[in-house]
């Protein structure tokens, strides 16, 4: 066997699916090759040497052999299993959400090392007990940055004038802030989101229907409060430690969640499936807390 047939890489496993009776197709994110799909032979067998090292949300070192179609994982070793993350229902769900985002936004064989570092960092942050919501928002914002969709938050995307400290609008199609004047001229308002926002209500259960890409047309914009804009601007250029120091009330938190997730859905033109579960779980945990 020639030496070029084998190669080694670090990988964070983001998804797996079954292949035949005992094999699995592992989708992972790597620093050198971006998203990488490979076969883990016999991973479903009880005594498999690969099994636990190729479970989703595991940072592993993989040795792969070039295959005709998909490459084959021949050896694996866990670097970090993120055990603290996997022992908590909410944090597992957050981890699955960010891995779904990476999977939906990336293509195979397209290197993006900062994105790998961002993912690794986010998983480490999720292992810590506090601020999982902030980690998700920070991850979303920086994911957009590394993919080339960094929101323009300092100048109006239409008239280029500096943004004033009033309620501005976020335009999904133009990827940035619209000043109130430009927004009213183009009459862009996106009704369903504006309603939640102004009423400050919790998102209703059937939001998935409103979140359907059709609801976020090219003309949609989202009213953004001064506080939300300030937080987004800060997060765009700071590290996790600073981001976590920001105290955020639940109203502001849901506003930030809505604007970023709507922008993501607009870009993907489809729903992110695990959002429904995160919402279901969040309301369940909130009810539980109230009962106690």
């Amino acid at each position, binding site marked *: 066997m020639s030496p070029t047939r084998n190669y080694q890489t670090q990988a964070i496993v983001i*998804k797996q699916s079954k292949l*035949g*009776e005992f094999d699995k197709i592992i989708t992972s994110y790597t620093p050198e090759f971006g998203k990488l799909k490979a076969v883990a032979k016999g991973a479903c067998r*009880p*005594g498999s*040497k690969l*099994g*636990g*090292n190729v*479970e*989703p*949300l595991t940072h592993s070192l993989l040795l792969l052999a070039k295959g005709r179609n998909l490459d084959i994982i021949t050896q694996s070793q*866990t670097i970090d*299993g993120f*055990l603290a993350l*996997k022992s*908590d*229902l909410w944090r*597992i*769900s957050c981890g*699955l*959400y960010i*891995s*779904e985002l990476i*999977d939906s936004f990336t293509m195979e064989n397209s290197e993006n090392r900062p994105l790998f570092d961002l993912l690794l960092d986010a998983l480490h942050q999720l292992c810590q007990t506090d601020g999982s919501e902030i980690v998700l928002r920070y991850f979303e914002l920086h994911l957009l940055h590394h993919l080339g969709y960094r929101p323009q938050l300092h100048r109006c995307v239409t008239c280029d004038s500096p943004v004033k400290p009033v309620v501005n609008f976020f335009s999904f199609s133009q990827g940035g802030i619209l000043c109130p004047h430009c927004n009213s001229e183009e009459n862009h308002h996106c009704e369903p989101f504006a309603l939640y926002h102004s009423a400050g209500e919790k998102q209703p259960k059937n939001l998935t229907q409103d979140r359907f890409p059709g609801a976020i047309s090219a003309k949609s914009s989202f009213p953004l409060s001064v506080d939300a804009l300030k937080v987004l601007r800060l997060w765009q250029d700071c590290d996790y430690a600073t981001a976590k120091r920001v105290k955020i009330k639940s109203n502001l938190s849901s506003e930030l969640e809505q604007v970023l997730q709507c922008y993501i859905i607009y870009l993907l033109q489809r729903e992110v*499936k*695990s959002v*429904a*579960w*995160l919402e*279901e*779980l969040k309301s*369940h945990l909130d009810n*539980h807390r109230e*009962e106690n």
Partner: protein
Amino acid sequence: MASRFSASLAEPVARLVEEFNKLPGIGPKNAQRLTYHLLRSPNEEAKALAEAILALKEKIRLCSICFNITDRDTCSICQDEERDHSKICVVEKPSDILPLERTGKYDGVYHVLHGTINPTQGITISELKIKELLSRLQDSSVTEVIVATNPTLEGETTVMYLQHIITPLGIRVSRLARGLPFGADLEYADDMTLGQALDHRQEF
């Protein structure tokens, strides 16, 4: 594939080859071999196979209590008075019951979820038989729920969710032990398994 065959084969033969070809793990060559085997075999054998396939789809349904596959309203395990009905073992799919029964160590009853919580595939609690499990827990004298989902991330998510909603009901929730499988090698064990094997080590 079918059109190429149908040009050179008699229609009934081509049709059966095509049907066999749809089954998992059966390629065109295998499908042909099976078809020719049936062609040569006695009429009764072919008839028995056809009847067995029809009966499978006509008679099989889900048990009204545990959602295992059965040909009656309630499955034989749920009907068995000898079994301990205060213990419920929760499994992902009907085929998981067989290996547990083979151990001969479990005398309780089962509950089949028909899947696990898998957020990235859009499978959440409404798609699973979790509501049915909860209503089962409310009107019977269940004292323990043993969650026997696969030791994967989805399985763990399901265990944690069930533990979260069942423990407040005052029912004990346990899950299968995690550890090293028989015949495994310590050197190749992953951190999670080895860590849990250490945590739950047993005294001789």
